């Protein structure tokens, strides 16, 4: 192990030599600076290598003496990791600082060296006063760095920074001296061993130490000065501040933890949590990226401190040290790399004052960094957060769990809002090229991904199949330049391979859903070939989402399930973000998606699901509510229409027909794990039934008034999901059979509808129905597919849709839910309205001159539609093809409700013979057709204006096509049912949270003195609280 003292000598020597070397040339001086940082990094890595391969911590006394006479530097696992982290952040920041360092006076370079050395010193030293010295060195280095390139705003915030720094150092000094006076040693280990500090005086002395460190860690009320520094300084310096100095100070806090009594620990935990919550609340109100990142880093640091304190205080997890290292360490590593990368990235964009879209590479880096920051898989933050939640749930600290989840949801909101802005950029702005400056963030992103993957695979999720989505995404992103069809085939192959690999591991139930989920993904990957060109980003995300759905099926333990679930949420969110108008809907998609996922996580964590026997109590309910949010039940459906409408046509088809089945599968899995019952007993199933019914009715009623095709289809999917929920809630063989039958049917005809609509939109270029018309003559196959789909969806007899309706009503009447039956009937009648409007406005009515040269949809869309049509027709003529497997699946869990007699399905109430119905309908139809053709005399086919128009000639096709506000009388009659109450509720909720943030924001008045007052008051309050605890 290299003796750290050499490194200090190296740094100091380099700092003194710099003016001389500068004579030779500024470039060489900078090489020297970077060389020293690289040396620190190499040393840190070597220590890590030694320690990880079994070596123990080594201690190095200064000047050969032993403690307490000498200053002892210890190199344990934590210290080695700390030094490596600091050196790494320093190196990344140094790269971005090089240009300004070259122009600015030499002081900047020296300050950088000193700051990094000071931070590493904080980590290594075991001596309290030496800790103070390194604290001050790094503080002075930071002050120098803040003002080195004389950015005027940076000067202002540097001054405020110094005031607070001065206060903190004085506090620390008083604390150190009284600790020395009581324990008469400055060495940490000895002081901790003795009992001198346990008395009232000792507690007070240690309090001063703690207060200083806490102020340095920028706690909530007293961190105005810090956020100003983050906002105004050069991004490299902000990265150092938020990454390196936070790590050093947290490790310093970690070191003095043994000194702290239970009162101190609860102070740290309380202040940390308060900082986390308030930082995120105020962060949500920020519109300047760097200031937002400042609040976010303050919040993250608060969380890590709180976790460290809680670990020691409440015995969180299975015993303090190991758990704290894993969780606090994971969160810190996550925060460190993510913040560094984001600061460098955001700073570069702000410096160029660019408002356009980010270039693909830096956009990918930004995406990875913000996903890691929020805690999406597979980054270290995810694993840490999972263990934290499990530990909090086990020890019953519910309100802390709520704060942690609420805070990270808020953080997700504003970080992804920023990402959405950068991904889309303001209209008309040229894309932003960052060039070399994006190297730092990309490196940080790669490190994050590597660390996360390593932690995942070696840790809780060893099964490689679950990592398939990420692997597929990575490979296809690399191949993004290749032509679209190649990537399409690759993603289809990936889906097929995954299916084959996982098939035998799935039980019958999961195989049924695998057909829909994987099949849907492959289907829409093929559909994505409809347009030429590379279609950057579509195929990787589509493949990732498909395999994530597959992973959900393959997962066994709760963590594996949740890992796959969050992967699916992330991939589908990016799909929505990719759509042309996708920025706003994507934000609401991810916020609701994560909200649901966090409820799911809390439920899974609390439920103790490992043995598969879930606590049937309210953890199960939490999971149920989380799944309902993802399924889009009425009330929490506000994210659904925007996301389905604004994303690309293929991805909205995939979202609505395949991905919407994932929550359904999860509901079934939840019920199965509870022994075919719902948590919370019978009233839950009745409530879920009514919720499903409300969704069905709400979806149908909203869909009636939409002008945009894809919004109509989105609400229609919402409605159909409602039916599936209603049938599932019946919790008996009839109900489950209906639910599965409806799910598969919905997959069939919704895919047909979305494929056809994609073709129509591509050909006509618009999504408004009233701008189309008369396309039957130009797109006959699409018309046929839409016709069959709406006949099936509305439940009109010959096709399989009627089977779904028959099963549903037999279930509901059999179960005695009579009112639900009537409302279900009304909802399915309302479905007629928007279905007819869809096919009338697009395919029938008056063709428009502008769409005269429209051709049939591309083959990539027509082929899948033909296949689906064939399948639908087959299932309609022989219902047993679909019903037999479903009945077998559901068979053994409930008493039999349906039984097949030949082709007739009999239930307690009635019977239905699909084949005979089809034969009779076909025969009657043929009879009438023959009768019509026989009597047709001299038919003259006429054009669109040969209509009886009150003896006038129609003026223009646009004014003769009745399509705009098609059901206006219906709105006049039943408008009160669809007054967008859910949207208004969630807007109010958002404004409420924003106003809390706004109120807290008023604390940061920008006046340095006020910030100093906050620091002093904060310390005073802590002291008073100390007395109380």
């Amino acid at each position, binding site marked *: 192990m290299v003796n750290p003292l050499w490194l200090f000598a190296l740094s100091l020597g380099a700092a003194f030599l710099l003016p001389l070397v500068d004579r030779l040339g500024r470039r060489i001086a900078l090489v020297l600076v970077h060389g020293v940082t690289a040396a620190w990094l190499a040393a840190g890595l070597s220590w890590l290598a030694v320690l990880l391969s079994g070596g123990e911590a080594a201690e190095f006394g200064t000047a050969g003496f032993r403690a307490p006479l000498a200053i002892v530097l210890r190199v344990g696992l934590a210290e080695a990791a700390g030094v490596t982290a600091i050196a790494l952040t320093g190196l990344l920041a140094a790269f971005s600082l090089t240009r300004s360092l070259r122009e600015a006076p030499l002081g900047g370079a020296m300050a950088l060296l000193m700051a990094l050395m000071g931070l590493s010193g904080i980590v290594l030293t075991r001596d309290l006063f030496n800790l103070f010295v390194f604290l001050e060195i790094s503080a002075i280095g930071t002050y120098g760095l803040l003002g080195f390139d004389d950015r005027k705003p940076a000067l202002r915030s540097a001054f405020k920074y110094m005031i607070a720094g001065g206060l903190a150092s004085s506090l620390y000094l008083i604390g150190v001296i009284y600790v020395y006076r009581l324990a008469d040693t400055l060495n940490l280990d000895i002081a901790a061993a003795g009992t001198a500090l346990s008395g009232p005086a000792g507690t007070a002395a240690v309090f001063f130490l703690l207060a200083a460190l806490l102020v340095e860690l920028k706690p909530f009320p007293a961190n105005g000065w810090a956020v100003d520094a983050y906002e105004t300084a050069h991004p490299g310096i902000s990265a150092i501040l938020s990454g390196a100095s936070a790590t050093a100070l947290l490790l310093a806090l970690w070191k003095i933890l043994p000194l702290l009594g239970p009162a101190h620990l609860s102070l740290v935990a309380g202040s940390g949590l308060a900082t986390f919550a308030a930082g995120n609340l105020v962060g949500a109100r920020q519109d300047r990226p760097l200031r937002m990142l400042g609040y976010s880093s303050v919040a993250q640091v608060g969380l890590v401190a709180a976790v460290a304190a809680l670990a020691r205080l409440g015995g969180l997890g299975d015993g303090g040290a190991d758990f704290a290292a894993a969780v606090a360490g994971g969160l810190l590593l996550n925060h460190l790399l993510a913040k560094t990368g984001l600061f460098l990235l955001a700073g570069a964009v702000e410096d160029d004052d660019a408002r356009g879209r980010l270039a693909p590479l830096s956009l990918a880096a930004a995406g990875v960094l913000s996903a890691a920051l929020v805690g999406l898989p597979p980054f270290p933050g995810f694993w840490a957060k999972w263990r934290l939640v499990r530990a909090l749930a086990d020890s019953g600290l519910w309100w802390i769990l709520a704060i942690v989840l609420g805070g990270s949801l808020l953080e997700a909101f504003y970080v992804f809002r920023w990402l959405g802005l950068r991904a889309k950029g303001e209209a008309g702005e040229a894309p932003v090229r960052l060039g070399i400056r994006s190297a730092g963030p990309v490196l940080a992103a790669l490190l994050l991904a590597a660390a996360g993957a390593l932690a995942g695979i070696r840790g809780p999720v060893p099964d490689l199949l679950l990592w398939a989505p990420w692997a597929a995404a990575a490979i296809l992103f690399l191949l993004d330049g290749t032509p679209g069809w190649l990537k399409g085939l690759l993603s289809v192959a990936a889906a097929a391979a995954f299916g084959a690999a996982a098939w035998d591991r799935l039980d019958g139930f999961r195989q049924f859903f695998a057909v829909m989920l994987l099949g849907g993904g492959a289907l829409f990957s093929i559909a994505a070939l409809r347009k030429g060109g590379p279609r950057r980003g579509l195929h990787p995300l589509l493949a990732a989402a498909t395999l994530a759905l597959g992973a959900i099926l393959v997962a066994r333990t709760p963590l594996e399930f949740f890992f796959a679930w969050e992967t699916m949420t992330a991939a589908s969110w990016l799909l929505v973000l990719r759509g042309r108008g996708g920025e706003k809907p994507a934000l609401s998609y991810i916020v609701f998606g994560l909200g649901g996922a966090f409820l799911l996580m809390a439920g899974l964590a609390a439920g103790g699901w490992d043995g598969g026997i879930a606590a049937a109590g309210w953890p199960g309910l939490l999971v149920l509510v989380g799944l309902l949010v993802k399924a889009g039940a009425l009330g929490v459906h506000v994210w659904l229409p925007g996301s389905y409408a604004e994303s690309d046509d293929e991805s909205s088809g995939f979202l609505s027909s395949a991905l919407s089945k994932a929550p359904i599968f999860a509901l079934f899995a939840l019920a199965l794990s509870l022994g075919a019952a719902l948590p919370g007993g019978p009233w839950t199933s009745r409530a879920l039934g009514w919720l499903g019914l409300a969704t069905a009715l709400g979806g149908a009623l909203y869909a009636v008034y939409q002008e945009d095709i894809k919004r109509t289809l989105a609400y229609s999917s919402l409605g159909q999901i409602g039916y599936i929920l209603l049938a599932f809630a019946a919790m008996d063989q009839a109900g489950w059979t209906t639910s599965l039958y409806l799910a598969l049917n919905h997959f069939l005809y919704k895919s047909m509808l979305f494929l056809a609509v994609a073709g129509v939109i591509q050909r006509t270029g618009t999504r408004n129905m009233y701008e189309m018309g008369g396309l039957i003559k130009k797109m006959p196959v699409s018309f046929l597919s839409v016709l069959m789909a709406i006949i099936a969806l509305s439940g009109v007899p010959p096709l399989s849709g009627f089977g779904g309706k028959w099963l549903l009503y037999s279930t509901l009447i059999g179960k005695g839910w009579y009112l639900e039956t009537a409302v279900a009937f009304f909802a399915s009648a309302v479905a007629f309205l928007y279905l007819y409007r869809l096919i009338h406005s697009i395919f029938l009515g008056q063709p428009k*001159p502008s769409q*005269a040269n429209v051709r049939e949809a591309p083959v990539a869309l027509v082929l899948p539609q033909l296949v689906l049509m064939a399948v639908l027709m087959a299932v309609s003529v022989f219902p047993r093809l679909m019903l037999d497997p479903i009945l077998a699946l559901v068979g053994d869990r409930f008493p039999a409700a349906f039984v097949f007699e030949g082709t007739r399905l009999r239930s307690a109430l009635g019977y239905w013979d699909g084949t005979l119905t089809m034969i009779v309908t076909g025969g009657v139809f043929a009879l009438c057709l023959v009768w019509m053709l026989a009597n047709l*005399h*001299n038919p*003259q*086919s*006429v*054009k*669109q*204006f*040969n209509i*009886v128009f009150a*003896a*006038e*000639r*129609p003026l223009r*096709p646009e004014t003769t096509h009745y399509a705009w506000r098609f059901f206006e009388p219906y709105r006049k009659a039943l408008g009160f049912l669809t007054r967008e109450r859910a949207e208004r509720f969630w807007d109010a909720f958002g404004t409420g949270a924003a106003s809390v943030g706004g109120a807290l924001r008023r604390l940061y008045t920008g006046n340095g003195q006020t910030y100093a007052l906050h620091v002093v008051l904060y310390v005073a309050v802590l002291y008073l609280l100390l007395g109380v605890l």
Partner: protein
Amino acid sequence: MSDKKGKPVPLANEGLPAGERGLFCDAPPREYAPAAKIVEDFWNWARSQSLWILGFGTGCGAIELRPLMTSRYDMYRFGIQPRPTPRQSSVFVIGGYASVKTLKRIVRSYEQMMGPKFVVALGSCTINGGMYWDSYNTIKRIDQYIPVDVYIAGCMPRPEALLAGFQELKRIIRAGKAEGQNEYARNFEWYKANQKRVIKDWNMPDYNW
């Protein structure tokens, strides 16, 4: 009017601007030969028993049609009933004077009726211009523009006269001599020339299917 291969020559439709010619069908009218005698007689009997009048009231004659629906005259007894669209009606009652504007609409509605179709002209104005004999704006002889089957004279004939007229129309139909549609198709150019001489702003296709 059909070319060598028996395919009808499409009409020119100059009245329409170039961009709108695609919106209208440009096939010329055709003669439809009646079926075999026995079948045609039976069909004519059915046509005579079910006369559906087009609800197109021109001039003061329209008001005479309303009493026929009431209990005093009750045309339903004879199987006559009003229909709102020319597609489904077989009798076009021209009730009184026809200005140039009205003639243009009469021509369009008449051509949109399905054959066999019959025209009953009421009042002296349709015969020889009536009291509008010197007006700059009134058609003085309707049968120059569309074929007429039955004239009912009077300056406005009473509903009883109308019923008598309809009995006469029934007799003509049963006799098979009400072939106005074929006659219109045969002399289509002549009729169209007369019409275009009077109707100046012809923004419609030549034959309105």
